[in-house]
C-alpha cells in the first residue's frame, strides 16, 4: 500500500476574541501528538485588547519541511471581514470553511462565500448554532469549526480530545467537557460532508511517532537549550517577542537550582548578566531590538573585559517601537556591529527551531571558550513558530568550556589577559586563590591594569578579534551548510535566520522545475565564515540574498567580505518572506542567465 505524503497547511482566521489562536494551538498540538511533523506560525495584533485580526497557520507533514507553505490548503473563517483578504492564499481545489448562519443580515459583498476563486471549494457550517446545540452556548463556535476540519479530513479524534483536555486543564472540568462536546459535534458534521476538495491527509510517518519528537516554539527551544547547557543565572526585562524566553525560564530555572531576576530595565539586565559572567556563572539575557540598543554600552564592556555572556535578541519590525508583533531581520547590523569601538563579538543566527536549541546551548560554550559576549539572533517568526523537533537522547552540551587558569603561584600577580597564541587567556573567577585581577572597561595590559599605550591597544584589540576565529571551528554546531545541487549552479541562495527555511523550500521547488540551484545557510554571522561563502559564490552564476530588511544588511555584510555583488531580495512587510517570491526571483535569475547565454 502506498501511503500518502501529507503536506497540508491549515489557516484559521478570526478576530481577537474569536479564539483563533487557541484553536490553532489545539490543532498543532493534536497533530504533533498524533505523530505528524508540524510547523506553525500565528499572526496577531499588537494591541492586547480590541478586535484586530488573528491568523493561526499550521503546516502538517509527514516529511521534513523547512517553512510555511506559499499557499494554504484549508482556510477557516471565524470572521469574514478579516478572512476575506486571505482567501487568495488558498490554492485551487483547496477548501474555505465559513459560518453559514451569522447572527445578523450581511451587506452585499461581506460574506466570504462571495470571494472564493472558482477553483476553491466552499464548505458552510452553522458554527454558532451547532455550538449552542452541543453546549448550550455559542462560545465554542471556534472549537466546532476545529472539529469540523478534523472530521472533514478524518484527523485522529482522540488526539484532539487529549489536546483540548491539556489546553483547559487548569480550568474547571466543565470547560473541558463542554469543549469536547463542541469539538465532537463539529467532528460529526465534518465526517458527514462529502468532500470535493483535493486535500489529502494520510497517516503519520512511522519515524515521527510522538515519543521521538516534541513540538515547540523557537523561544521554547532556546529555553531548553539554556537548561541543557546548565544556565545558572538569567536577568531580563520583558519585551515582545523575547518575553516568553524569560517567562519559561522563570518557571524552569528554580527547578534546577538556578536563579532568574527581572530587572528594572534592559541596562540593568545586561549589566547583571555581564556581572554574573564575570563571577563564572553561565548567564544570559534576552531582549529585542529596542532593548538591545540600550544594552550596547555594556556589550562593549563585555567585549573589553572578555566576559562570557549570552544575549538572545529576537528581532521585530523596527526601528523604535515599530511593529512589535511583526517579524523582521533588521537587527543584523546592530547585532554584529552595534555599539562603540572595535567590539567584535560572536553572533549566531539559527534558521529553525532545532537550531534555536543548538545555538542556545553552544552559545554558552562559545562565550566561555572565547571569553566574549555571544549574541543569538532570532526573530519573531522563529521565536513564535512551532516545529516538531527530534532531540538527541544525550545532552550534547559541554558543562564547562572555560580555559581555566592553573593557579600554581598564588602570590604572583595573575595575567588574566595574557597574550597567548590562540588569543584566549587563562581565566580565573573571583574567589579563586591566585586569580585576583581587575576587569575593566579601560584598555588594559595583561594583568588587567589600565594601559593606553599604542602597542598595548593594538595587541589587545588584535587579541580580542583574532581569538574569535576559533569559533568558526567550534565543535557540535553547523555554522554554514550548502544544500541542493553540487558543483556549479545557475542560481545560489545565500540566506540566514528564519528566512532560510523559505529559501530552502524555494530552492527545492526551483530544482523540481529543472533549474540548477543550491542554497547555503549561514548560521554564524560574526565571525563570518568568509571562505566557505566565497567558495559557494564562486560556484553560483547568480546569487540571491533574501532577507527581511530594507537594504540588505546580510547582503552588505557578505558583499563587503567577499567583494562580489549579489541580487538583493528584500521585504519589510512584517511577514515571513513568501516562498513564491523567492522562487520567482530564482526563475528570473535563471532566465537572465539563459538570455545572456543565448545572446553570447
Amino acid at each position, binding site marked *: 500500500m502506498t501511503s500518502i505524503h501529507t503536506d497540508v497547511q491549515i489557516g484559521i482566521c478570526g478576530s481577537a476574541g474569536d479564539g483563533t489562536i487557541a484553536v490553532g494551538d489545539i490543532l498543532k498540538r493534536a497533530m504533533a501528538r498524533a505523530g505528524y511533523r508540524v510547523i506553525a506560525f500565528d499572526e496577531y495584533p499588537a494591541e492586547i485588547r480590541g478586535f484586530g485580526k488573528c491568523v493561526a497557520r499550521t503546516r502538517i507533514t509527514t516529511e521534513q519541511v523547512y517553512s510555511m507553505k506559499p499557499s494554504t490548503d484549508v482556510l477557516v473563517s471565524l470572521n469574514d471581514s478579516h478572512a476575506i483578504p486571505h482567501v487568495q492564499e488558498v490554492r485551487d481545489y483547496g477548501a474555505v470553511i465559513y459560518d*453559514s448562519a451569522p447572527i445578523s443580515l450581511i451587506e452585499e459583498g461581506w460574506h466570504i462565500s462571495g470571494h472564493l*476563486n472558482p*477553483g476553491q471549494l466552499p*464548505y458552510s457550517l452553522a458554527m454558532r448554532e451547532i455550538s449552542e446545540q452541543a453546549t448550550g452556548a455559542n462560545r465554542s463556535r471556534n472549537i466546532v469549526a476545529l472539529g469540523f476540519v478534523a472530521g472533514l479530513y478524518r484527523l485522529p479524534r482522540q488526539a484532539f480530545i487529549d489536546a483540548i483536555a491539556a489546553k483547559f486543564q487548569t480550568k474547571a472540568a466543565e470547560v473541558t467537557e463542554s469543549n469536547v462536546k463542541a469539538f465532537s459535534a463539529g467532528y460529526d458534521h465534518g465526517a458527514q460532508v462529502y468532500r*470535493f476538495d483535493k486535500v489529502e491527509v494520510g497517516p503519520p510517518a512511522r519515524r515521527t511517532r510522538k515519543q521521538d519528537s516534541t513540538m515547540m516554539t523557537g523561544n521554547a527551544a532556546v529555553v531548553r537549550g539554556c537548561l541543557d547547557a546548565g544556565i545558572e543565572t538569567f536577568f531580563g526585562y520583558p519585551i515582545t517577542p523575547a518575553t516568553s524566553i524569560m517567562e519559561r525560564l522563570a518557571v524552569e530555572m528554580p527547578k534546577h537550582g538556578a536563579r532568574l531576576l527581572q530587572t528594572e530595565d534592559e541596562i540593568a539586565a545586561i549589566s547583571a548578566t555581564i556581572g554574573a559572567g564575570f563571577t563564572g556563572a553561565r548567564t544570559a539575557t534576552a531582549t529585542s531590538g529596542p532593548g538591545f540598543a540600550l544594552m550596547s554600552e555594556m556589550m562593549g564592556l563585555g567585549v573589553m573585559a572578555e566576559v562570557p555572556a549570552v544575549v538572545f535578541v529576537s528581532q521585530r519590525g523596527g526601528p523604535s517601537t515599530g511593529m512589535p508583533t511583526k517579524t523582521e531581520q533588521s537587527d543584523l547590523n546592530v547585532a554584529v556591529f552595534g555599539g562603540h569601538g572595535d567590539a567584535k563579538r560572536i553572533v549566531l543566527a539559527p534558521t529553525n527551531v532545532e537550531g534555536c536549541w543548538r545555538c542556545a546551548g553552544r552559545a554558552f560554550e562559545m562565550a566561555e571558550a572565547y571569553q566574549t559576549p555571544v549574541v543569538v539572533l532570532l526573530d519573531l517568526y522563529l521565536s513564535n513558530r512551532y516545529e516538531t523537533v527530534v532531540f538527541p537522547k544525550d545532552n550534547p552540551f559541554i558543562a564547562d568550556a572555560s580555559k581555566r587558569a592553573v593557579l600554581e603561584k598564588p602570590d604572583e600577580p595573575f595575567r588574566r589577559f595574557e597574550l597567548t597564541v590562540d588569543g584566549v587567556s587563562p581565566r580565573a573567577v573571583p574567589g579563586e586563590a591566585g586569580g585576583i585581577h581587575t576587569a575593566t572597561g579601560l584598555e588594559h595590559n595583561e594583568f588587567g591594569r589600565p594601559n593606553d599605550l599604542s602597542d598595548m591597544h593594538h595587541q589587545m584589540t588584535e587579541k580580542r578579534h583574532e581569538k574569535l576565529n576559533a569559533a568558526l571551528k567550534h565543535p557540535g554546531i553547523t555554522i554554514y551548510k550548502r544544500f541542493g545541487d553540487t558543483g556549479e549552479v545557475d542560481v545560489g541562495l545565500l540566506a540566514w535566520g528564519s528566512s532560510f527555511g523559505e529559501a530552502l523550500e524555494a530552492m527545492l521547488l526551483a530544482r523540481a522545475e529543472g533549474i540548477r540551484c543550491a542554497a547555503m545557510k549561514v548560521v554564524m554571522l560574526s565571525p563570518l565564515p568568509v571562505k566557505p561563502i566565497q567558495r559557494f559564490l564562486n560556484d553560483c552564476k547568480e546569487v540571491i540574498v533574501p532577507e527581511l530588511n530594507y537594504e540588505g544588511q546580510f547582503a552588505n555584510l557578505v558583499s563587503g567580505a567577499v567583494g562580489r555583488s549579489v541580487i538583493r531580495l528584500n521585504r519589510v512587510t512584517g511577514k515571513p518572506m513568501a516562498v513564491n517570491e523567492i522562487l520567482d526571483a530564482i526563475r528570473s535569475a535563471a532566465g537572465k542567465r539563459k538570455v545572456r547565454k543565448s545572446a553570447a
Partner: protein
Amino acid sequence: MHHVIIGNGIAGSHAAQVLRERNPDGKITIISAGALLFYNRYDLPDVFRGRCDWIDYLVHPPAYYKENKIKLRRKSLVTEVDTNKRTLTLAHREVMSYDQLLVATGGAAYVPERLLEFIPLMHNFNNFRVAMEMRDALPDGGTVVMLGGDALGLDLARTLVETKHRVVLVAGDRTFWPHEVNPETRPRYMQALEKMHFEVIDGKQVDRVEQKNGKGPARRVVFDDGSDLPADVVMPFYGLSPSIDFMSNAGIDIERGVLVNPQLQTTRDDIWAAGDVCQIWSPEHNAYRFFYGWKNVKMMGEVAARNMTGDDVAFTTALDEVLQIQPDGTITSPFWDYD
C-alpha cells in the same frame, strides 16, 4: 447593469455565456446552491464506468469564470426574492441586489406524498455527490429498485444494466415521464423495457420502504399486497418538481412552475425564467407547459439572455418529444440527447 442568475444548470450557465457575449461590460452573477462549478449532469451515469472525479464532469475549467468575468456564488441558497427592492436574500443572510433576474433553478425529484417519509431510505441521482453516494451504496451486481421510472431514470437504468447491475422497475402512471404514453401504446413500451433487461413490476403500489440491517441488501420495498422485494438501493423517478419555494412571496405568477411568456419573461419586466423551473405559454397548446431536455433548456437560456439584452425572440421547442421504439425493440428518448 447587474444580471443575476439563480441556478447553475445548463439554463443558467448558458444564459450567462450569452449575456457575456451580448453585454461585454455588464456584471454577471450566477448564484448556485451547490458547491461545484457547472458540470454535465447528463453524464453522471458514467460514475458506474469509473469516471469518479467531479473535475472530469466540468463543462468549463475554473479559469473560464475569470476570463469571462462571470461571478459564481456557490453554496448560496436563495431563500427570498424582494421584487420591489430588487434584492435577494441568501441562506447565510447576505442581501444581494440585482437589476435583472433570471430564475433558472431547475427542479428536484418529485416524490408522491405517501412516500415522503421514506426519502431518507431512498437514493437520488440529481447531483454529483448523491450520484457517488448511490454508486458507493450499490455493490457489484447489486439490485436497484426504481420507483416510477421516468425518462431520467430509464437513462440511468440503461447504464446500470450495461454495467451488470440488476434493475427492477416498479412501473406506474409516471413511467416514461415526461413522455405521455396512452393506454393503447403502453404495453408495447412496457415490453420494450423488458427487452432492455429491466425487470418490470406493473400494477402494484409501493406501501413502504424499510431499512434492513445485517448481511444482504440494505433495503426492502413492501407493496400494498404484502409482497416485498429486497434491494440494495431504492430510487424515486417520478419526474421533477420545479424548485420555486423561494419565489413564493415574490409577487410573480406561479402555477407549478414560474409562468413566463414565450420570451421567457415573467409578469415582471425585470425577471425572466428558463429551464425546468418555468412553464412557458404555448399558443399551440393554449396553456402554460414545461419543456424538458438539454436542447430545450439550453435554448431557453439563450432566449432569456437575448431578451434580457434587448432582443425580442420567442422560445420554440427544439425537440420532437416522441418516445421512439427502435428496430431492435428497445426505446430511445429524445430527452436523452445532449451536446
